[in-house]
């Protein structure tokens, strides 16, 4: 029986051993084995081929030793968490910026590169750079900049008697469109019910349409969700959920893969899909087909009487940050990626939106140009809530919005949960 008892102990200690490892981890930043480069471009074939080439060229030209390590998105997050908790950050690592990066910065794990990049950031979209700017200093460089918007199926719109060239611009128009689509027997909206982060896009967009980005920023500074705007956003979302506009069985479908919301939308099974700039490639890989010219895009509609406007943009990009113990050439490599190599990245025509002010997208890519213009002309820019807020609060926002969607919480309860989690968030001040 000792054996079975030990099973219990072993399972537990395996967990704790991880924590222990984190406590004992040593700083071993790239002094001997080169500089590790953790990137997550595993889905985009063009980039996963190009990135190692770029590293090799840079290594030869500069007598450096950059070692690319591609990691799948879902594996990357816990891997980075573990490395960071061990006090041993990778030398160059993928980052979305925001509150998660800020947490690492405040723990002294990320290199301040402000002085090294002051020239090249002049040619960068300020909105793209903002998530990597923490307390006025720059801690990373973006290579992609995008936003969340409504992908829609023009053919299905037409079938329901809606004008595909004149998509909904206000919330009530959107609700009307949902009704019309339902009456025509078309699923109005595809959503990943099992992946609450996809639903939080709806809630966050409604919040900034109602309160404006300024209103949200003020609430974040006050560590509070008690602004009535959040409750109204939750109620509007609940109202939409109650119209039952989603595909059959949406609550067990995630994002990406055969049985998922992009697969449903990509195969023409639903009329709208609120998602980021990368979605078309996921639609194609998940559904195995392409909507082609039927695929359209419009910005999230305005809410009547809201303080926010339709040209306020919600989204984020992809970029890299440098670990605190990285060799100096790691920063040079980041600069190389953002300058000489950047044109070659864009030549591959990946589904990314350029961050440099002078870059151009081929005219055939109508939707990408639409997104790029929306980002460029944005009156203000808001990073994803779940990256912008401290990790615990961001996760609670996702969980609470998910609870409204599956009916396990009322809008009041959901916003209250977010508020309580934010209030409980510690305010550690770390001396540099």
């Amino acid at each position: 029986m000792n054996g079975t008892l030990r099973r219990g102990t072993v399972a537990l200690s395996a967990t704790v051993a991880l924590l222990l490892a984190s406590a004992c981890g040593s700083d071993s930043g790239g002094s001997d084995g080169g500089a590790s480069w953790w990137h997550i471009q595993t889905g985009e074939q063009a980039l996963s081929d190009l990135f190692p080439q770029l590293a090799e060229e840079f290594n030869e030209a500069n007598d450096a030793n950059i070692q690319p390590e591609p990691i799948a998105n879902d594996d990357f997050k816990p891997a980075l968490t573990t490395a960071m908790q061990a006090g041993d950050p990778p030398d160059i690592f993928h980052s979305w910026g925001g509150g998660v990066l800020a947490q690492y910065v405040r723990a002294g794990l990320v290199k301040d590169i402000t002085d090294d990049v002051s020239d090249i950031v002049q040619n960068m979209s300020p909105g793209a750079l903002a998530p990597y700017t923490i307390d006025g200093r720059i801690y990373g460089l973006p290579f992609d900049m995008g936003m969340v918007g409504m992908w829609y199926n023009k053919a299905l719109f037409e079938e329901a008697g809606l004008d595909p060239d004149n998509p909904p611009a206000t919330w009530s128009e959107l609700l009307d469109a949902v009704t019309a689509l339902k009456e025509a027997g078309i699923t109005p909206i595809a959503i990943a019910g099992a992946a609450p982060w996809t639903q939080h896009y709806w809630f966050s967009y409604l919040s900034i349409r109602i309160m404006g980005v300024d209103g949200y920023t003020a609430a974040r500074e006050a560590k509070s969700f008690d602004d009535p705007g959040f409750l109204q956003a939750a109620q509007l979302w609940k109202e939409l959920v109650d119209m039952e506009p989603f595909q059959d069985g949406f609550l067990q479908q995630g994002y990406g893969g055969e049985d998922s919301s992009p697969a449903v939308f990509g195969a023409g099974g639903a009329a709208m899909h609120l998602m980021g700039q990368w979605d078309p490639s996921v639609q194609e890989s998940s559904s195995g087909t392409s909507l082609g010219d039927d695929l359209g895009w419009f910005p999230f509609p305005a809410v009547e009487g809201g303080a926010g406007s339709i040209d306020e943009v919600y989204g984020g990009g992809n970029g890299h940050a440098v670990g605190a113990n990285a060799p100096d050439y790691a920063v040079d490599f980041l600069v190389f990626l953002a300058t000489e190599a950047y044109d070659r990245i864009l030549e591959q025509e990946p589904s990314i939106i350029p961050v440099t002010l002078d870059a151009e997208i081929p005219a055939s890519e109508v939707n990408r140009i639409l997104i790029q213009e929306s980002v460029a002309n944005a009156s203000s820019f808001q990073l994803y809530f779940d990256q912008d807020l401290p990790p615990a609060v961001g996760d609670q926002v996702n969980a609470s919005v998910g609870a409204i969607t599956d009916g396990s919480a009322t809008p009041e309860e959901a916003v209250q949960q977010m508020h309580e989690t934010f209030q409980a968030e510690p305010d550690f001040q770390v001396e540099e």
Partner: protein
Amino acid sequence: MTEVNQRGVASVPDRAAAHRPAAPSGGVPARHRAGPAARRKRRGPSPLTILLFMLPGLAMFGLLVVIPVVSAIYFSFFKWNGLGGPPGISETSEWLGLGNFARAFSDSVFRGDLLRGLVLMVLSLTVQLPFSLALALLLHQKFPGRTIFRLLFFAPYVISEVITGVLFGVVLRQEGGLVNELLRSAGLGSLVPANGWLGTRSILLVVAFVVITWKYFGFHMIIYLAGRQNIPRELTEAAMTDGATPWQAFRHVTLPLLGPTIRVTIFLSVIGVIQLFDMIFVLTGPNYGGPGHAAETMAITMYRHGFQRFEVGYASAISVIMFLICLVFALAYIRFVMRRDIEGAVTNVGGRR
């Protein structure tokens, strides 16, 4: 010359041992020749030797079990995001005392975890184990193809929990999933839940239980089968000869003799439920236990707080609570329920006989 001398000298105790088996002797041949009495009287190895041989084991146990447990207990007293060195030194840590534990027991999600664990335990003990027992007794009978059935029923246990999760994710798909397609082709399409088997809060825990049962019934069945085969046929035959009905023979002969086996499976089952993680985690994807926490377990809550929310202190507190629940249950169960079964196998507390 010295060699010969040495050999000659060495042979003396050998011969002596052969003549006087009871005498203490150190020679290897003597040990073989000597009876059990000699072995018992032989002087045992010194405490130092014992310690030396135990050292590797002790070191591993200390390193892999004691230190992690102790550090988890230490972490659980802090609010700590896991960064900047151990709590207390890290600038992003704050002493909370028992605050994390108070938080866990006032958190509706964690309290729900406990309740869901209890439901799964009750279901396991009242449905899964009796089902496995019935199958084991059935497969104990002689009939053609018996081995094939035993093999088939045991097969799910060999598959890893993660693969089971992925497998049932596909089987339970809303469109094109095996279960729904079978139901629809049998004209029972109305039984398909509108939100899917894995998306309906009210049934998700039961669905998860069915998957757990699918995976583990074969394991319990094999244990029962082994236990059943150890019961001599004469006992049942004697009972039947004395006029017992088959049910009476089962109730008063087979079942009592299976007692130790049943008690072991109950123990394994309960401990398994307390630690349940992988399968639910895979089944419910990025939703951590499904809509409305419908199938969330303690281990999933711990993972979410530790790895997603950077609340390492709170996650450690949950792990400590899990550990204590396991420990208290295991000790109490072994002490009170399995006492008779393990008499002599485990050191008796206080040398009691």
